[in-house]
């Protein structure tokens, strides 16, 4: 095994916006914003043409449109992004099984052992980017380094449509001029604290005595020093099964009180049930998520006695969780999810596991409802509290509404 690992960080450039420009030639070379509602939504992606105006993803749409009133806004098509992502990941996986997805459009690849087959890491990166351009018609950038976080910074420096290699022996000098905020784990608060102590660049941190950093900031002080020296032995952890399946919605207007929230949570629970059945999975852990108007987020979870894929059962569990949440405040978002999926059904074995259990009434009902929905749409049959109140639409339409929902819904959910 070589002394240094060879890690690639491959990141698609303005992924969603690039997919839109690929699929609609009239958008090419134009400032494109992929995003939701002009008042409440946020920017999901911004093309490189609009970035000079200061538009960034996750920025409120209202602000983005003030900065770039001429931008073309397109609603997200998550199904298309998921498809492109599948193709890109297939290319990664043809190079190495050690692919760690960070999201739909970026991943770490450990190509240490692939060099014998495909040549030096920079060559591998070039080959991957060429294949993505040729086969998926999308631009991608890559960073090449001996450790994960340096590869990530390197790909960022290479954007757009480029690649940057940081040889192991150049790591420290490469990092030194960068601001400390580029170090992993340094958020705005930590940045402020470090700045107050006169640590402005990664090089400043590297020059300090690690023991003094440890004294001042605890164990994370030492960790920062190690990162500043390019020491990061975290391995590339390949993809695991989807851990959760969920559905969530941000409301058009904030809601208050259990009565008002219930139908939304019900619709979400039914969606989760449908997705579980589609994926052939069952869950024992139901999680309810509430985001208040002030963006405070709370989650509560409940473990069921029996695994289920029944939306009504999930709804009942979610209702029980309501009692553990302050509902006297205005709520902006609710979400229901099935957690801890794919965990080895560890623990207690069942007496009747090997008996052909007569199908539960709910199973037969769900099978019938799924069949009706497949043929006539989700609106055809629903529960009385939802009829006429909650927006439905097909799963694709549903997916368009929320990033979270779409990511969970797609076959690339595990890449979340």
């Amino acid at each position, binding site marked *: 095994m070589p002394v240094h690992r060879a890690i690639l960080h491959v990141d698609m450039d303005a992924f969603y916006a690039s997919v839109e420009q690929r699929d609609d030639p009239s958008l090419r070379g134009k400032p494109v914003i992929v995003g939701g509602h002009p008042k409440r939504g946020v920017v999901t992606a911004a093309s490189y043409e609009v970035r000079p105006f200061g538009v960034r993803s996750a920025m409120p749409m209202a602000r983005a449109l003030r900065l770039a009133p001429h931008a073309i806004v397109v609603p997200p098509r998550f199904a298309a992004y998921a498809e492109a992502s599948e193709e890109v990941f297939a290319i990664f996986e043809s190079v190495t099984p050690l692919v760690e997805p960070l999201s739909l459009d970026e991943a770490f690849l450990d190509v240490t052992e692939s060099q014998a087959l495909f040549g030096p890491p920079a060559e591998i990166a070039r080959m991957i980017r060429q294949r993505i351009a040729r086969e998926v018609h999308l631009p991608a950038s890559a960073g090449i380094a001996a450790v994960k976080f340096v590869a990530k910074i390197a790909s960022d420096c290479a954007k757009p449509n480029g690649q940057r290699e940081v040889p192991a022996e150049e790591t420290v000098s490469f990092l030194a001029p960068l601001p400390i905020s580029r170090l992993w784990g340094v958020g705005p608060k930590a940045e402020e604290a470090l700045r107050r102590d006169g640590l402005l660049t990664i090089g400043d941190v590297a020059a300090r005595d690690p023991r003094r950093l440890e004294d001042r900031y605890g164990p994370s002080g030492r960790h920062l020093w190690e990162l500043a020296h390019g020491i990061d032995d975290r391995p590339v952890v390949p993809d695991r099964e989807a851990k959760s399946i969920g559905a969530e919605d941000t409301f058009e207007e904030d809601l208050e009180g259990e009565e008002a929230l219930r139908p939304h949570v019900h619709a979400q629970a039914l969606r989760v049930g449908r997705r579980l059945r589609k994926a052939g999975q069952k869950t024992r852990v139901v999680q309810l998520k509430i985001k208040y108007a002030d963006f405070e987020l709370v989650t509560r979870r409940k473990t069921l006695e029996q695994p289920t894929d029944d939306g009504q059962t999930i709804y009942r569990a979610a209702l029980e969780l309501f009692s553990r949440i302050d509902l006297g405040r205005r709520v902006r978002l609710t979400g229901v999810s099935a957690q801890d999926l794919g965990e080895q059904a560890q623990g*207690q*074995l069942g007496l009747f596991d090997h008996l052909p259990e007569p199908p539960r009434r709910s199973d037969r009902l769900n099978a019938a409802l799924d069949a009706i929905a497949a043929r006539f749409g989700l609106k055809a049959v629903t529960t009385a509290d939802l009829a006429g109140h909650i927006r439905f639409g097909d799963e694709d339409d549903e997916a368009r509404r929320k990033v979270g929902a779409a990511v969970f819904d797609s076959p690339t959910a595990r890449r979340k």
Partner: protein
Amino acid sequence: MEFKIAADELKKALYRAQGIVERKTTMPILANVLINASKSGVTVTAFDLDIGIVSEHPAEVMKPGAVTVSAKYVFDIVQTAPEPFVTLKRLQNNYVEITSGPSHFKIVGMAPEEYPKLPREESAPLVKVNGGVLLEMIKKTQFAISTDETRYILNGVYFEPREGGKIRMVATDGHRLALIERELDGDFKLKSGVIIPRKGLFELKRLLDEAPDAECHLGFAENSALFKKPGLTMVMRLIDGQFPEYQRVIPKEGEKQVTLPRLRFLEGLRRIALLSADKSNAVKIRLGDNALRITSHNPDLGEARDDLEAVYRGPELNIGFNARYLTDVLSVVDADEVVFELGDEHSPGVLHAPGDRSYTAVVMPMRV
């Protein structure tokens, strides 16, 4: 309505009512008891639409009539009454006045006509049963009843007539099962088994516990059960559905059999479960030559083990169990020794007294 009654007598009725009346209900009247005074005495009715108890009590009735009032508040009031007697009197607008010596309460009631009617089960053929035996059967099975409401069929105990006037009671939560067969005499005229709901069974147990030697009658009509003892009648709705084919999950005879001192085994499990890793009470059991070892391991706390002498020769077995499932059974077996039958680490364990399978418990292992 107006009557005077011994506080203890009324307290007895209201105490029973506490287990029945619904506290959280969309029908407020279900939190009430119905008190009916007639020439022959007073009856107190508690009913949650599934289970109802009517009890008769001697009282000095000045004026017949009926009221319905909160079971909880009247119980609390009567329980703290300063004198041995209390007087209840219905006032205008369904108010009820409760007096005992110097103390005085005026309680909001509801119109007795609005109290739901209990089903009349005249048709049920009542069978005289031995209350002590029935109590034993309940105590030895009730812990295995499922509390998972999505498996409502398992939310009760299966009451099945067998040959020779025997009755079998079976309870299971899908992880363990308890079965007891006893003679209850008499013919219940049941075509097949019925499922008695958990709550009703608990109330029945409570009534039997009050006086196990009292003369008891039990009967079944189409979808309800009727229980009578002197001065008291209970009706309950049965669970409608098909109980699982429990016989198929009871192993014929385990390939490994070990005889253990019951109390030592019980205490050992309780001790070792103190350190089990999570809420599941997981313990490991290792069965070897004439020795059984119970261990547990908790990454946050430490580890524990307990060794028992055991009569066993055969291949070694390592198996995990929820200790609770075993201790539930061991605490109600009457014998000094128990036989523990095992197969492999994924097969159920069976517990029973030596040479007696009329009370048998089946427990599925845990993967550990």
